[in-house]
């Protein structure tokens, strides 16, 4: 089932329409964001409303690192941005992980907003207008250019490969000793402590990894949109990604991918004047209602629905 989906997405650009290629690129970038947030929320049980900060800071970082009308090199800007994201995640993590439960949610929200207001109110990143990234990073080394990110098709596959890579990486983490420990801590932290596991190093590890991968998504987003603004750091953005998780299903990373697709496609549909005419500009109303219904009726997301369907089919076949 998953393989089918991956192949479909991979072959999608063959339909030709550039608009859709760019749309799916955007969805895949958000899927990377969602998967990394899933590591925090689904695997570690840490609901963060400030995760958008890593997304935005990385975007601003590449925008600031790029010379105004020239392409920066992919090969050093990407690692540098990842290191910046990891460092920021380490510092923030050391502070916010002193809290837990609801305090953690509120504290991450406030930290996210702190960074938001830093970018919004000061000249640091062009204030509320944001910054432009006029030219996407180039992949050339010593004159040879393996691919050109300015071309939508190349960019699409670049993001596609990264998305698959993140998926594979996160699944490896899930089955690793670290991942098992994290899962144990999520279920019963007290028991894990009585077995000798100190909670903070594991949570911090998850936090830093999630922050770094979200930074990766932010870097790609800046390239995709050509533009970064403080809204990327807002908690509304973080909440939107959480919505993708609940739509798709938490703790199984393909749920994050499904959720990203579901959310963006739903948004496109609700906001489309072709379908809804004049009320399309109030699409958030419909989205809000869908989210409320989703939480009440389908708390484990679409992937749980798919699971149930496939189990029914298996029973019917046997």
């Amino acid at each position, binding site marked *: 089932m998953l393989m089918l989906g991956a192949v479909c997405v991979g072959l999608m650009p063959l339909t030709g329409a550039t608009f859709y290629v760019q749309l799916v690129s955007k969805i895949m970038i958000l899927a990377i964001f969602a998967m990394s947030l899933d590591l925090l929320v689904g695997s570690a049980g840490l609901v963060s409303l400030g995760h958008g900060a890593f997304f935005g800071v990385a975007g601003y970082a590449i925008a600031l690192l790029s010379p105004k009308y020239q392409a920066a090199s992919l090969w050093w800007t990407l690692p540098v941005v990842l290191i910046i994201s990891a460092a920021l995640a380490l510092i923030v993590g050391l502070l916010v992980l002193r809290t837990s439960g609801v305090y953690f949610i509120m504290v991450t929200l406030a930290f996210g907003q702190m960074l938001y207001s830093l970018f919004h109110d000061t000249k640091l990143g062009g204030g509320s207008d944001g910054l432009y990234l006029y030219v996407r990073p180039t992949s050339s080394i010593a004159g040879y250019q393996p691919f050109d990110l300015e071309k939508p098709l190349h960019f699409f596959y670049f993001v596609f490969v990264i998305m698959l890579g993140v998926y594979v990486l996160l699944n490896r983490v899930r089955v690793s000793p670290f991942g*098992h*420990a994290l899962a*144990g801590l999520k279920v*019963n932290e007290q028991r894990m402590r*009585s*077995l000798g596991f100190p909670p903070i190093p594991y949570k911090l590890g998850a936090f830093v990894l999630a922050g770094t991968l979200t930074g990766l998504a932010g870097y790609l987003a800046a390239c995709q949109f050509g533009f970064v603004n403080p809204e990327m750091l807002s908690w509304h953005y973080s909440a939107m990604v959480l919505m993708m998780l609940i739509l798709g299903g938490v703790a199984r990373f393909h749920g994050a991918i499904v959720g990203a697709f579901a959310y963006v496609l739903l948004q496109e549909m609700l906001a489309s004047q072709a379908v809804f005419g004049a009320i399309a500009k109030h699409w958030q109303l419909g989205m809000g209602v869908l989210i409320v219904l989703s939480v009440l009726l389908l708390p484990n997301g679409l992937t749980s629905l798919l699971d149930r369907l496939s189990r029914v089919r298996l029973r019917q076949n046997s």
Partner: protein
Amino acid sequence: MTERGLRASGLRKGFGGLTAVDNVSLALDVGVLHAVIGPNGAGKTTLINLLSGDLPPTAGSIHLNGQDIVGYSSDQRSRLGIGRTYQKISIFASFTVLENCRLAAQSRKSHAANLFRSAGSYPSLRHEAVRALAAVGLDHRAGVIAGTLSHGEQRQLDIAMSLATRPQVLLLDEPLSGMGAEESASMVRLVRELAKDHAILLVEHDMDAVFALADALTVMVNGRVLASGKPEEIRASPDVQRAYLGSAEARHG
């Protein structure tokens, strides 16, 4: 020469106006099973929590092998060799039996930090897990999902998980609760076997089991120690019979 074993002295725990544990001292040595009995609310679970590090004491000292561990957190104490089980069964229901023990064993190895290799690919972890499972008699159920085990088997798994951390001291909080006659007998045999190589503190309400197992006995009432010593002496003491044993035997008799 440092003293081996766990020594608690003058332990006190107050919650606001209530003193749950008052001036309790005890000693745990490898090879000795020390049972703690008393009516509900006597402070037995609080005592275990003080020893395991789940709660900090208001006053008193705790030494493990001569080392002062009062300021240590529960995970630190676990790494020093104190294992425990909780009144409420605390296994990880969605993992298999083996995975539960393997996870417990992980805490002792540096592999625990590894993010990229599959947990199943470490032979030493598997070996430890199997060893612990064999000690409780669950090795034939290694591949079963823990949540589907019977009540008695889950309790066994709980103990196996603690064993996988190779503790010196085992604090068992009512391991027999909720068990039928056959399961209880099985658990009593297991605990007696474990007492040979560990320093065990057993909190229990099942008097038959207590008197079958205990080498040393402490009776707690209202947070204080009423009597402490050999089981036969305590059983015969009129104070204890009046305060506790009479009513307890009526329950289990």
